[in-house]
């Protein structure tokens, strides 16, 4: 009866090796990201790129080993919902950064052709 109670639960197929592997990979990825920033081994932009990639890999590791997303047919709707959420996140975060930084560029006080006196800002 134990299986009946837990078969549809998240983590139904989980075993110790999932958690061990997730822990080990997360420790390595986290330490790598912190070490890169703390030592300053790479130039700033390269560091940002590498730690974003490390974070993406670590999110994937957590999804597979801790949240047990395995792409099985049973989880199809969970994955669709996650993809939709990801689309909204992309629009929200990407759109906000795009619009605000564009506005920031256009409102620089020393733009040529700017005729309004600065005290109106």
């Amino acid at each position: 009866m134990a299986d009946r109670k837990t078969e549809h639960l998240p983590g139904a197929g989980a075993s110790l090796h999932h958690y061990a592997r997730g822990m080990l990979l997360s420790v390595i990825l986290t330490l790598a990201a912190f070490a890169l920033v703390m030592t300053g081994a790479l130039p700033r932009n390269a560091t940002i790129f590498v730690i974003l990639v490390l974070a993406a890999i670590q999110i994937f590791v957590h999804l597979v080993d801790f949240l047990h997303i395995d792409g099985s047919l049973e989880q199809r709707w969970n994955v669709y919902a996650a993809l939709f959420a990801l689309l909204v996140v992309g629009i929200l975060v990407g759109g906000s950064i795009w619009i605000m930084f564009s506005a920031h560029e256009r409102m620089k006080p020393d733009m040529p052709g700017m005729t309004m006196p600065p005290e109106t800002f």
Partner: protein
Amino acid sequence: MTIPLDLPEAHSVHAPQHPAAAVDDAELTEKTVFGFWLYLMSDVVLFATLFAVYAVVCRSYAGGPTGRELFDLGFVLAETGVLLLSSVTFGFVTLAAQENRKQAVFLWMAVTFVVGAVFIAMELYEFNHLIEEGAGPSRSAFLSAYFALVGTHGLHVFTGLLWMIAMIVQLARDGLTAAVHRRLGLLGLFWHFLDVIWIVVFTEVYLIGVL
């Protein structure tokens, strides 16, 4: 936040061995897990708005302190390790529940609670330290966004701790019924999900913040 605590399942508590009840339980579990997953996805959107705000104002210091001056990466690394450890100890709750080992579920739930409480204590210490240094949420747009984002994550973790207390009470009162199994599964999703959010927090806020 909606935690499904009062679903119609009284029948299954008393007759979990009945085949029809077991089928109902399986269907209810499937639906409940999917519903909770949808809630988590809406939480993703909540955090995305806070991340977007932070990304926009993260260099708006208003003449106040910068992330490089404020953040102590060693301390953040320790916080990250504590939260990761709590995710793994919750994994042991899940494994123990699968094997119907009630005492082990108790033990690992208590361990996870303590480790999670250590994380909250560290975060409160950090917030207190910042406010004492004059770097409270009202100092600059950067600090407002920082406290809103990291504070919202902390509130979620705190809610998870309350949920753990509720589960320990239910476990003691009802034992490992289908309903308790289901709630343990949802709490596991919630807890691991918060660790995923923290990956983005330490990368975007702390690591990029000191660069």
